[in-house]
Every structure is written in structure tokens, then in C-alpha cells.
């Protein structure tokens, strides 16, 4: 082939590449990013999928979004579609939104309670297999239906997905009243037989009785959903969740109160921070014995009575012991509940047992989830009070 026609062919190939190429190009303004995905039980075997697609113009604000009529626009649009499976339902979604639906920016998945009570097994498939989901998506279980939760509009935050994501982070970090579970943790617990799945519960915020319910709804993240082998079997209240997270060793900080020694009617509150957890295992004997030792550091937040003074060195140990006893009681209660009511190892003790086995087949045969109810779990909590605050008094006020 003479050189000039070779050059011509090369040029043609290059042009063809440019013209036919860009197979994957999706202009970012043509894509509708689903930021929150809600999965509920529909009629019969169908699923109801609720998607929340952010409206970038409103969320980003600035000159484009603000002012006048624009300001009233919703920051996200919420749609519900039904289908036999997740992918079929999303296919229907594409017929009435003009944007390409993309799940790559999905940050939160909310699972309906009824769906969880009938088992998650069937629906995990797409979550794991699809290239668009990543393993650090937050998973939440909604009390009621996911659709209801997703129609709330947050006031401080423009983007509802950011609201939910940050909510889960704060709820976990600052209060320990709900765990923070990603898809990775979910799958880890579900597949490895070492622990049971847990998930935070999200519900519409209801005010305490006696207070006025505001018109704009909010969502509240409180409590834990307990699963057994992929089916939701119960839930834990907020205080129980605090204890659960403390026992899992993943606690950041939470607040605990104890009565004042001299007057049980008054209370002092402490902020407790997790400082370490050790699990000791003793496999001699018919059942495994676990000893969980939790160490917490405390800082005094407030007290309703200055007498006896918080700074009194003789009484510090006593206070620590009271706190520890309080927490140990709660822990034992929780363990009892987990073992008797639902027999689900939400503490992750199986992970500590598994290294004792030589291979997976014997671990599978052992069936730890069934044996959890009979295991002996002993909890000791140790509290160390480090700081008592900005005021300090070492003796009784005169």
C-alpha cells in the first residue's frame, strides 16, 4: 500500500474514532442523580421504589436559583414507581423523567419496615451487583414507609440527601442513639455469620406530647432495627442503642445520667466517650464464654446539686462506680433481650469466635447465630471521670 493512502486510512480512522466515539458521555446537566432511594413493599410481590432526584439549580442556589418564584421550587423531586424488582421499577422511572437516571450519587438507601420484616435476601442482589452503587452508601430502615420519610423537607439544609447523610453522621457521632451502617457493614454482617445486621431507624419526627407540631415535617434518626438472618425481628430504643454501640466498641460519645448521691431525686449528667473495648473468649466448656470489658471516659456536664461537690476526691471513685454499675445493668439487660427475644448477635461476638476455627466449612457447620442464645456473655464497664467542667469545687459548699 503506498504511503499516501496509508496516511489517508489513518486519518479516516482517527476521524471515525472522534465521530463515533464518546460512548459513555453523559453531560452532567442531562443526568438526574438519584440521591436517596427508598424501597418499600408494594402490592403482592411488587416493590414500591421512591426516588429523590436533586434539583441542582435550587440546591446550589446563587444567582440561578434564588429569588422570587424560583425560591419556592422544591430542592428535590420525589417520585414513586412500582415494579417487580428494583431495576424494573427504575426502568419505568425513565419513561417520565427527561433526564437519564443515574444512581452513582445515591448516598442513602431507606428500606421500608414491612419489606424488612419479610426478608432482605431477594433484594440485596442489585445493590451488590450494580456498578452504580458503592459500598459506603448509608442504609436506614424506616419506621413506616420509606416514601413517607422521603417527603419531608428539611429547613436548614437545601439538599435532602445531604440532610440525611449528615443526620446519620451526627446522630451517630454526637449521641450514639442510632448506629451508622453502610452497605459494606450490612453485607459484612449478612454474609459472614459473625454478627447480625443492624440498621438505624428513621421516622418522621414527632414532638413530645404537649408540644405543638410544626407544619414542616422533619425526620428523626433514632433506634436500631434488629435483624435475624436478613429478616427484621425487632427494634431497640434509643437508650438501648446507646448501650449496644458501647458494647460494639464503636461508640463515639453519649450522655448518661446518675442520681446525686445525697438526693436521689436530683441528677448529674456525664458525657461518656468510648475509650476501648476488649473481648475475652473462653471456649473451654460446652458454650463459649465472652467477657466484654468496656472502658469509657467521662466528663461531667451538669449537676443539679453542688453537694457533694464534684471535685471531691474521695467521692470520685464512688461516682465512677455508680456510672459503671448503671451501664453494666443496662448492658446485661440488653444482652438478655438480644439473647432471649430475638437471638441475634448484634454485638459482633461471632467475629471473635471465628478465628478459633480452622476453616470456613467447620465455621458454617457450627452455626453460631443459633448458638448465640446460649452463650454466656459477661459485661464489665469501667468508667474514668477525667474532667468536671469549668468550675471546680473540691469541698462541700459552705
Amino acid at each position, binding site marked *: 500500500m503506498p504511503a499516501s493512502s496509508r*496516511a489517508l486510512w489513518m*486519518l479516516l480512522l482517527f476521524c471515525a474514532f*472522534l465521530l463515533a466515539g*464518546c460512548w459513555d*458521555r453523559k453531560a*452532567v446537566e442531562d443526568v438526574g442523580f438519584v440521591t436517596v432511594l427508598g424501597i418499600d413493599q408494594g402490592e403482592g410481590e411488587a416493590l414500591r421504589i421512591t426516588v429523590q432526584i436533586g434539583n441542582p439549580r435550587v440546591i446550589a442556589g446563587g444567582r440561578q436559583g434564588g429569588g422570587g418564584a424560583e425560591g419556592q421550587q422544591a430542592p428535590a423531586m420525589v417520585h414513586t414507581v412500582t415494579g417487580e424488582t428494583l431495576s424494573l421499577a427504575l426502568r419505568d422511572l425513565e419513561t417520565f423523567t427527561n433526564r437519564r437516571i443515574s444512581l452513582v*450519587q445515591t448516598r442513602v438507601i431507606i428500606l421500608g419496615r414491612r419489606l424488612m420484616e419479610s426478608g432482605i435476601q431477594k433484594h440485596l442482589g442489585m445493590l451488590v451487583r450494580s456498578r452504580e452503587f458503592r459500598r459506603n452508601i448509608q442504609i436506614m430502615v424506616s419506621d413506616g414507609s420509606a416514601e413517607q420519610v422521603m417527603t419531608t423537607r428539611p429547613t436548614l439544609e437545601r439538599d435532602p440527601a*445531604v440532610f440525611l447523610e449528615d443526620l446519620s453522621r451526627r446522630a451517630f457521632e454526637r449521641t450514639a442513639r442510632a448506629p451508622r451502617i453502610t452497605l459494606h457493614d450490612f453485607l459484612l454482617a449478612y454474609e459472614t455469620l459473625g454478627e447480625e445486621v443492624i440498621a438505624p431507624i428513621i421516622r418522621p419526627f414527632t414532638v413530645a406530647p404537649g408540644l405543638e407540631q410544626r407544619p414542616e415535617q422533619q425526620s428523626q434518626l433514632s433506634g436500631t432495627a434488629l435483624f435475624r438472618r436478613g429478616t427484621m425481628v425487632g427494634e431497640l430504643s434509643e437508650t438501648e442503642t446507646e448501650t449496644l454501640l458501647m458494647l460494639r466498641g464503636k461508640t463515639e460519645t453519649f450522655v448518661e445520667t446518675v442520681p446525686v448521691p445525697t438526693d436521689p431525686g436530683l441528677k448529674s449528667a456525664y458525657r461518656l466517650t468510648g475509650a476501648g473495648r476488649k473481648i475475652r473468649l473462653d471456649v473451654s466448656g460446652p458454650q463459649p464464654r465472652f467477657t466484654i470489658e468496656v472502658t469509657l471516659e467521662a466528663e461531667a456536664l451538669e449537676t443539679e446539686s453542688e453537694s457533694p461537690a464534684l471535685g471531691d476526691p474521695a467521692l470520685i471513685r464512688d461516682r465512677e462506680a455508680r456510672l459503671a454499675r448503671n451501664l453494666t445493668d443496662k448492658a446485661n439487660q440488653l444482652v438478655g433481650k438480644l439473647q432471649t427475644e430475638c437471638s441475634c448477635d448484634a454485638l459482633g461476638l461471632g467475629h471473635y469466635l471465628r478465628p478459633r476455627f480452622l476453616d470456613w466449612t467447620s465455621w458454617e457447620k457450627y452455626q453460631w447465630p443459633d448458638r448465640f442464645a446460649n452463650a454466656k456473655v459477661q459485661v464489665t464497664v469501667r468508667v474514668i471521670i477525667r474532667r468536671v467542667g469549668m468550675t471546680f469545687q473540691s469541698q462541700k459548699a459552705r
Partner: protein
Amino acid sequence: MRQLFDFLNQLFDPRKRPAQPQQFSLQQPPPPGGKPDVTVSTELPTADLTPTREVQMRAAAAERHIDQLLNPLQGDLTDDVEITVERLRAALHHRETSGLVIRKLVLPASPGRRVYAVFVDGLVDSQSVELAIIEPLMTQTRLQGSLRTGLELLRQVDETLMPGRQVEHVHSLGLVISGIVSGMCALLVETAPGILLVEVRKWPMRAVERPLNEGVLRGPQEGFTEVLKINTTLIRRRLMTPDLIFEPGKIGRRSRTDIAVVYLKGLVSPALLEEVRRRIAHVDTDLLLETGQLEQLIEDSPQGLFPTLQATERPDRTAAALAEGRVAILMEGSPLALIVPAVLTDFLRIPEDYYVKWPFGTFLRIVRTLGLVITLLLPALYIAIADYHHEMIPPALLTAIAASREQVPFPATLEVLMMEVAFEVIREGAIRVPSQLGQTIGIVGALILGQAAVEASIISPILIIIVATTALGSFTIPDYSLNLVIRVSRFVMIFLGATLGLYGVAIGLFAFSVHAVSLKSFGVPYLAPMGPPQPGNPDNMLRGPTFLLDKRPTLARPRDKQRQAEKVMGWRVPPSNNEEET
């Protein structure tokens, strides 16, 4: 179109490609003893610095060729001065051209002998010619000696009458002609064998000014001018050593441009010097106006993207390079000196890095490298991520990008290309316009164009930021050639990013790296200083403190490895105790 086809043709047809240079490497073969050559040599043989036979022969052949071109009336000088002058007249086209002056004098001391002074008015210093040549000839009445032969007369004239300057005694008409057209005054004395060429050059020149394109905040503000002599002076002032050699030469058949190959004898590697001479000797062209043209004729890979010779306007940088064992090439008519060998890090350095303290020098280098990377990759990454990989941006950023793009009618690629091309047009335009206006046009163009385009919702504001940052990044690249390379490669990256996303950008980056690594500059690998690291010279990306830079960089294989005392801050060492005892 034809040129494009030709270019593509030669990619495929090996016969049409420029001939590959012989494998040249600066590595000298190890000495036969088997030990590596790491000791500092105290005995520096000088014999091997003379040009090789090959270079000498080529230079002689070039001279002959030029002779033939210049004087078709080949022949030696005759004794008859009139005939010689006629020949000169014909060769210099006295009838057709203006500027040639043939002044006839009569020597009073030896009456009857005519002297002709031939020179080109405009190339000579008229005052000098009058006072130093014509006047002594006219007024000198006593000449010693017998003055019987023409040779003695010539010698007398040469030795006693010419008060200053360089005087050459030549015997070839070709040399006379080339001397006259390069500003010498030829003295033809009747009955004398040979002709005297007196150097009385003076031509209008620019004064030594600040370097136009390589300014620094701290450091000397002198730049080269277009006159070779001034440039040599500027370098001589900084290296006042007898070992500083300026090898003269002429290049170009019709231009006969003076060039000088500059090096430090005893420091430079003989292999490097020989290679430089060899390449220059092979250059056979009509006219060379700028060192850039010479660079393209002697570089290792003309098809390479990167510059492999450094062109600089600064004498201090040239002096520093010479002190590292490199070779500089100066050319008459060009204010840029070429420094060989040059590797990538040289193009990212400015002399100011060495004049300030080392943390700041390092900081500036890092900023420059960052600027280079940003210029090359930022638009391509923006397109790749905004069009292909939406999952790779944090959500808040994605929302911002999507919001700003929703108003815009163009797809991201087109937007980026439009703005980049607009910026390039503004830059080129600003260079052409006279200086004051040019800066204003740049600012006005960029700001107003960009702002107006955003207001009209033609482009998104995020893109303005990206394009502006890219442009600013390119301003940090100190060397113009490298700047051009990066600016053009940026467009290639944009195309790749627009067709295949990050995959395309990775392809471009890898190809770029392979190309950069495969280049050599006079035998030195282009990315040499980046690895392996040289002990004793912490001067790469990060610049070590000056007191640690005691070993010369071994790029150019200089013959003396130590350039600074190991403990150069000797005043810090406390005096020894012995002195106290005595």
C-alpha cells in the same frame, strides 16, 4: 492538506524520516583498571580538547565552499593593486550596490605607493577609520627601515601606523571579501604581498537591558543583546578565568553569521564538546537568523515535542551552566544563548531559585511544577469528570457544576474548546500589539469576554475559573518553548478526555511520559535528574541549602566533581584547642 499528508507519510515511510543521529552517549568507557571513575582528577589532560580531524576537515571544506561562493574570480592576489581592486569591485558589485567605499591614498613616506582602503560604510566606525587608519597613513612621513620591499612596507604599516585593534594579514581574496562584508577595512598597499584587514567594526546596537522574558525579582537585571561581542563580555565578566574559551566559527553560506562555542576548558567533557562541534560543522544552510533555527538543526530528535536545548537571555544563567560543565553557543544577531545539554528540570528552574534561601526556592519550584500539571491536565480532567465520571466528584461539587451548566447551551467539550481557543487568540493578539496597549487588551479581553459570556449564559462560571487557572498555570512555566509544548499538549489531552474520559487522559499522560523519557539531549536522558538521585547534590525538585550543594551535577559529565568545599561555611567551625595551648 498536502503538508498533513506528507507529515503522516513520513511517519510511515522510514526513508523520508530525518536520519537518526548515531547513538551518542556521554558515558565515558570505564578506565581499564576496572574501578569506576569517581575520584577527582587533578591532572587534567588538555590535548584532547582540540577539534578532531573530522571537524577540522568539515570546517575547512565549508570555508572553501564559501570562498567559491563569494569570489567567482578565484585566484590569488596579484602584485598589481589596481587589478586586485578591480576584482574586489566586481566581487562586491560596486556598480550596483551602495555603501562600498574605496578610498585611494598615497603614502607620503614612500611616495608613489598607492594605498587603497576598502570598507563598507555603515559597518565600520567612521571615526575610527578616519583617525586610526586614513589619518596615520596620510600624515605619517617617517617610516623606518629601508622599505624596499612591499612586505617590509606592509609590516611597517601594520606595526607602526595602526594605533589599535586587531590587524590580520591575509593572502586570499575570499577572506578579504568576507572580511569587508563583515565590517573590516581592507588595506591594499601597492607592491605588498597580501592585504591587511583592520577590524574597525561598529554598528548600531541595543544597549544592555533587562532580559525581556526572563525577569527575576532578585538577581542581576542584565540580558544578552544581539551583538556577539557584548554577549561575550557579559559572560567574561562573570567567569574571569583564562580557561573560559570562546571558539569562534561562522555558520550559514550566505549569512556568514559569527557563532561562538563557549566552554570552560578543563571542566567540560571532551565527548560533549566534540559532539557539539561535529553537529555545528554539519549544518549547511543559507541563513541563520536566530539560535532557534540552529537549535532545530542540531537537536537530537527534531520530531520530539520537548525542547532539548535551552535558550536563555541571561548571562548569569549561562555562566552557571558553563560552571556545571555545559557548553553554550552564542550567535551574532540573537540575544538568546543556547545551552547544551538541557534536561526537563532545567526548563522549570530560574536563577532566582538559587539566590533566595532554600525553602523558598523549593517552594517556588513546587509552585511551578504544579502550574505545569494544572495547565496540562485541568481542562481535560474537568471534561472527563463532568461528562463521564460523575461518581468521582464529591456531591456538593457536582451540584455546583450541574447547576452552573444547566443554563448553558453548549456541551462541556465545546465550551472548553471555545474558551481555550479564545484565550490563545487573546494571548497571540496581545503579543503583536505595542506593549502598553497589549497588556490592556489582555486584561480587557479576558475579563470582559469571560464576564459577558457568563452573563449571557453562554458559558458556565466554573469554566471561567478553570480556563483562567489553566492560563495562569501556563504563565508559571519559565521557558517559552516548554510553555508552547504544554499549551499544545493541553489540547490533545482535551480531545482524549472528551472521547474516553479518564481513560483517555491516562492514555495521554502515559504517552506523554514515554515520550519525555525517551528523549535525549546530547546523550543525556531527558528526565535524568529525577532519578537516580545524586549524592552530594540535593538539587532537584527540592533545592537543598546552598552549603550542601558541594558536588557538581553530573549531567554533563564534567571532569571536576567538586565545586564547593565540603564544609564551605568554614567560619562556623570553632578554632581548635591547640592554638590555646601554644
